[in-house]
């Protein structure tokens, strides 16, 4: 007990030491640091707002469902990619890996006549093998990831053509199509509004609230500053409101997309892995300062290997989702996916030089691109303009990041 009291004294003394001029600097720093992240969320909200004004259909139940289904595989890739980028690497091969894993799955299920889950497992297995291959060259031989994955991009595309014999395979059985196109609904009835979807959303909200409360209590036990209780309640209520509104729109459409559940699980798991696991922290350390990480005892090779293994696995997951959605495997599948995934990470605040980035940021970055594509399609804007707008957004996002860094750097 006395230990805690001493700590409290020390903490308060520190706070007093800081003095009034640095309190401002403190707030400033908090702001500049968070701007990088919160800027993305604000931009996302603004873009959604803009399109919902321009196009009345934009926030309709059908369209929201559509956006989720259409961009799910890019978001899955972005989750793996941001971890690669945090550690200071890049992966140019994921588009080809999506094609290869989808092709293998199609061969197993469509040609081989095996059940759907064997196809999915085969795809994940191939994804892991790809990860082992690329991880080996990057981590143990020490070839820059740019080269290894550029080679992989060609290699795995070639393998896709080989596996498919240069032709498309389709269709998948109905069960397989459900991975990306299926919905959970109707278990609890409802009249035009699916009650099951709302119940799942409510459970998620309660889980969020309980978890937030517990982490707040834990911080209090460690005598750290927390937001005021009314503010805390307000925050939870705001999140609950948004989630519920979102779920309500889904419930009015076709219910809860299976792929949304998959996505939610991946986002939560990988957020925790990057923020709270030793492995995740080591990724940040390697990307932030490789030499310092090495001299601090980080097993750099092992971490790099695991990062690429994981990327291969997630590319396999994305391969299953994409082949399911497109109901078949094509030789040209997944073309340019790597660039969308990389762009999502950078728009989402990851640093080009490594060491900075978050899973949620990358997902929001991917959503910004998805929402923009979808919105512009609804407005009937030409594909050429769409491409130009996306390119400009990427450039501005990174320029904003660089500007921020420069300003933060010159502050002292």
């Amino acid at each position, binding site marked *: 007990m006395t230990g805690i009291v001493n700590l409290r004294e020390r903490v308060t003394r520190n706070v007093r030491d800081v003095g009034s001029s640095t309190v401002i600097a403190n707030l400033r720093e908090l702001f500049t640091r968070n701007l990088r992240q919160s800027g993305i969320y604000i931009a996302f909200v603004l873009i959604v707002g803009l399109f919902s004004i321009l196009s009345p259909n934009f926030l309709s139940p059908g369209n929201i469902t559509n956006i989720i289904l259409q961009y799910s595989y890019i978001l899955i890739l972005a989750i793996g990619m941001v971890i690669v980028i945090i550690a200071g690497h890049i992966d140019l091969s994921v588009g080809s890996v999506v094609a290869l894993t989808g092709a293998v799955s199609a061969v197993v299920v469509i040609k081989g006549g095996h059940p759907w889950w064997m196809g999915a497992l085969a795809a994940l297995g191939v994804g892991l093998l790809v990860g082992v291959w690329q991880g080996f060259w990057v981590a143990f031989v020490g070839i820059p990831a740019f080269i290894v994955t550029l080679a992989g991009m060609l290699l795995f595309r070639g393998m896709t053509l080989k596996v498919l014999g240069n032709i498309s395979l389709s269709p998948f059985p109905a069960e397989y199509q459900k991975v990306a196109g299926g919905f959970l609904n109707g278990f609890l009835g409802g009249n035009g509004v699916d009650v099951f979807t709302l119940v799942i959303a409510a459970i998620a909200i309660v889980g969020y609230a309980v978890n937030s409360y517990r982490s707040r209590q834990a911080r209090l036990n460690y005598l750290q500053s927390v937001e005021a209780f009314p503010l805390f309640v307000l925050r939870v209520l705001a999140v609950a409101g948004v989630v519920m509104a979102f779920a309500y729109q889904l419930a009015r459409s076709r219910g809860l997309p299976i792929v949304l559940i998959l996505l939610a699980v991946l986002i939560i798991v990988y957020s925790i892995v990057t923020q709270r696991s030793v492995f995740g922290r080591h990724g940040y350390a390697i990307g932030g300062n490789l030499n310092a990480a090495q001299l601090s005892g980080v097993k750099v090779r092992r971490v790099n290997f695991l990062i690429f293994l994981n990327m291969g696995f997630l590319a396999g997951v994305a391969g299953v989702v994409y082949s399911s959605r497109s109901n078949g495997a094509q030789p040209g599948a997944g073309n340019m996916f790597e660039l969308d995934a990389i762009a999502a990470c950078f728009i989402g605040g990851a640093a080009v030089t490594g060491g900075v980035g978050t899973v949620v940021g990358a997902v929001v970055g991917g959503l910004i691109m998805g929402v923009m594509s979808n919105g512009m399609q609804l407005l009937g804007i030409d594909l050429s303009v769409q491409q130009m707008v996306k390119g400009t957004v990427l450039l501005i996002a990174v320029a904003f990041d660089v500007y921020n860094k420069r300003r933060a750097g010159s502050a*002292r």
Partner: protein
Amino acid sequence: MNDNILEMRSITKTFPGVKALQDVSIEVRRGEIHAICGENGAGKSTLMRVLSGVHPTGTYDGEIVFEGESVRFGSINDSEDKGIVIIHQELALIPFLSIAENIFLGNEQATRGLINWNHTNTEAAKLLARVGLKENPTTPVGQLGVGKQQLVEIAKALSKRVKLLILDEPTAALNDNDSAHLLDLLRQLQGQNITSILITHKLNEIAEIADSTTILRDGKTIETVDMRTEEVSVNRLIKGMVGRDLEHRFPPHTSNIGEEVLRIENWTVHHPTQAERIVVDGANVTVHAGEIVGMAGLMGAGRTELAMSVFGRSYGRHSSGQVFKRGTEIHTHSVPQAIGHGIAYATEDRKRYGLNLIEDVRRNISAAALGKVSSGGWINGNEEIKVAEEYRASLNIKTPTVMSLAGKLSGGNQQKVVLSKWIFTDPDVLILDEPTRGIDVGAKYEIYTIINRLADAGKAIIVISSELPELLGTCDRIYTLSEGRVTGVVPKAEATQERLMELMTKVKEQA
């Protein structure tokens, strides 16, 4: 009529939230060597950035008068046109280009758009002669040592017809011979009517060479002392810098020496790329619990290489030798192994090898011992913050919060973060490589106190330092290295700078 080449009058420079310079005035006489000293953060670098135009006219208040006229600089180019050249601590040379190409970079000796290489190289050779560098102008700069690169920078400044040369910590990375040569050169340039401003932490250099000294503290001019008319002691300068009389630059300490903790036997290391080159040659070193052991040597003596090689083979190719801990042999083939055996190595280059500058203080402190704040591979974030707060308090790390980025702290506080990181691994042996390089006098004292505290707690400590007074002031025994060999070990009672220097320069007898 005064003969001031430069007057800066009432310079005030404000960054958002911080007053970096407050009403600073400085007068530099033509042809003198003018030293500027002050603690880190006193405003020396900012003042020079104002002078050289990095902070252009309009971003500060006050007036700059150069050669009798009021000047307004919009960029570095403007100040260089007037003959003001600044040489930064981190040299701005391109390693793959030749000496001549570097000297005339941005000022290429061209006729009608094509570079005249003969002219370039002969002019470069003339400039090299002036700075006393005997190298071929076509040699790539990357092949030169830091000391010679410094001379290339000065030659480059001379090519720009420099009138006022500003050197920011020029000797920080140099060994004593190179430093002496550089200071000599400044005196020669003085004879050629080139005025120099010298920013340095090394007060003995100031005492030796400066004609006058301006002391800055907390963004204000404290005083300008004329070194020619009065006898100025180093203590007098320190007093001005820190605002207190530092009677003792080193905290008093009596070591309580216990059993042997680490013994390095017959340790030999080869250069990582040049296999036949022996960098450390059969070194034997022991250190006991509670003992502070020094390692002295000139650049290239192999001190850092020895330490890094023992610490998980982080340098070069190891060919022979054993490490014993408390009498039993241990293997330190990898950094995790070395850390596991209770060895910690705090690097001499904290920015490149010690810290993740874009990560916060908290995560830097826990970086080498994450296992202690995690279970089953999961980090307890609250425990981590608690640990960081404890080190912030006990080592007096000055930072707004432990969530501030390490890159934003001053050198001394960054060093304390590095020390925290290694103390948190709870080592038995701490190897501190240049623990006070580039940090100010006040912070140095704090670092010495921390070192003493660690020794009192029974840790075995090895201090590698290029500053002999530092070794004499803190260590119980001092090893000297020369050309990769241990040439002697001197107990505190017998150690003098002369004795150490003699051993440090002892060359291998030709058989």
